[in-house]
């Protein structure tokens, strides 16, 4: 699958180690995300996904390892790195009293983007929310909030977009629409780091996938290559439910079927 990868790493994570007290949450994690690539980071609960993402976002200081966003070190050149990063967090994260327009203006100001009223209208028209411009964020539906969140994540044209379980709680229509938007972002050269619990989603949109478990990356490859290289493993065959091996079977086979807390 070639999606305009230009072999420019927009995210480089090398030998990342994160501890919480004596507990090691992330062990020697290394991966890169290229411009024009959707890179999926998959793992069961407690596998180390959130800690890895928090370190990439600069919210958590790792004990060792390096993280560079668009070439900027997240520690030494924190502001430049964060300015090169667009983030859509899992939880609703905007003041519910502000209107959609006000939230866009707030983040445009924070990222140093000049937007005229016509440009804000254009942005809102693009996500079918022009009629909701004066609505408060707290009054929007889950799908509408996700669209606003995605607009904010890309308002400054970042090299890397980080989407943390963006389709959780969305109906199938909204989910498909978001996939199209992700693909559109890829076409325009953004690198995307996506976390999701939906193997269907990962298989549908990701160019490459890393599976992380117990703080370590256990494999990185394209979805099809992951299926092909693991289809004969007994634990993958055992996880298969319909005869045909899917990415979910590979995921369960590699990480086990035990429910994580």
């Amino acid at each position, binding site marked *: 699958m070639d999606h305009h990868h230009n072999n420019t790493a927009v995210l480089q994570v090398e030998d990342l180690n994160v501890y919480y007290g004596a507990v090691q949450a992330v062990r020697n994690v290394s991966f890169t995300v290229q411009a024009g690539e959707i890179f999926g980071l998959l793992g069961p609960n407690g596998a180390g996904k959130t800690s890895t993402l928090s370190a990439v*976002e600069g919210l958590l200081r790792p004990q060792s390892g390096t993280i560079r966003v668009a070439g900027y070190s997240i520690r030494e050149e924190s502001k430049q790195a964060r300015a090169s990063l667009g983030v859509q967090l899992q939880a609703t994260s905007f003041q519910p009293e502000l209107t959609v327009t006000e939230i866009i203006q707030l983040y445009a100001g924070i990222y140093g983007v000049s937007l005229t009223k016509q440009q804000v209208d254009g942005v809102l028209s693009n996500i079918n929310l022009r009629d909701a411009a004066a609505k408060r964020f707290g009054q929007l539906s889950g799908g509408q909030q996700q669209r606003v969140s995605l607009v904010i994540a890309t308002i400054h044209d970042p090299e890397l977009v980080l989407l943390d379980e963006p389709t959780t709680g969305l109906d199938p229509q909204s989910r498909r629409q978001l996939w199209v938007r992700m693909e559109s972002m890829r076409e325009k050269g953004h690198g995307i780091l996506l976390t999701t619990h939906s193997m269907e989603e990962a298989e549908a949109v990701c160019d490459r996938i890393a599976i992380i478990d117990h703080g370590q990356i256990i494999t990185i490859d394209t979805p099809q290559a992951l299926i092909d290289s693991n289809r004969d493993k007994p634990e993958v065959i055992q996880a298969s439910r319909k005869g045909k091996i899917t990415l979910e079977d590979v995921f369960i086979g590699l990480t086990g079927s035990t429910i994580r807390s």
Partner: protein
Amino acid sequence: MLSQRSTNHILPIISKDPHMQRQIPSSFAVYSSLLKADLTAQWRNRRASILVILVPVIILMTWKGLVERNGGAFVLSNCITVGLMAIGLMGYSNSVARDRDKGIFQRLRVAPTSAWSIMTSRLTVQLVMIIIMTTTLFIVGYRFDHITTISAGSYAFGFLTAIVGGSVYLSLGQAVVGLIRNPETVNVVTRLVYFVFIMTGMFGELGMLGPEIGHAVKWSPYGTVKRIVSSSLESGAWDQNASIALAATVGYAILFTLLGIKWFKWNTR
């Protein structure tokens, strides 16, 4: 780079010069954007803000009879102290606890904003609230309680001491929100602290709780704030005790600020 880009569509096409440094907005520009949003959010929550101001206004109106006996400065300073407590404990701490729980701070922190600009913007909004509350009490005191003995200079001095006193309760609110993660628990605890401070402070000041508690209240955050506000409103009343009270007030503010910074976590996990 960005401000010059076309933003006519949601996802603009990347056309970067790889050797060009990404433009970072100035700290002042970021602070201005945050302040505008925080002031808007405060305005939209104006019912809650009015309730915060209403309590000291009602006390001021019901204490009209005490003006002649204890003086306008005594009545006004007690009411201003109650208002400052309400702003710091009920308003500020609860809004910070709620926004932290919703992940609003985390979203801001992954943008190129500094922690100080996020918090300075929040505190500026509270400074505006302190000025509005103090002005309202001065007006109600003048019009309803007929407190006419305070000079213009004393009013100005009163504003300054109200701001210094307000810092005690804002920092105390910060310490509470640092110590407690759950927003509902923050709400309950701040209400409780507010109630205890009002009861012991006001009744202790009036000598209704005995000399020991009266003395303790005098040097409590309630008593020191009340004293500096009272002394500032009365011409020639600033004495050595008022200076010691000012030092104690600043000391409380520094102590609570240090605890608030030490304990505060940006997320609830």
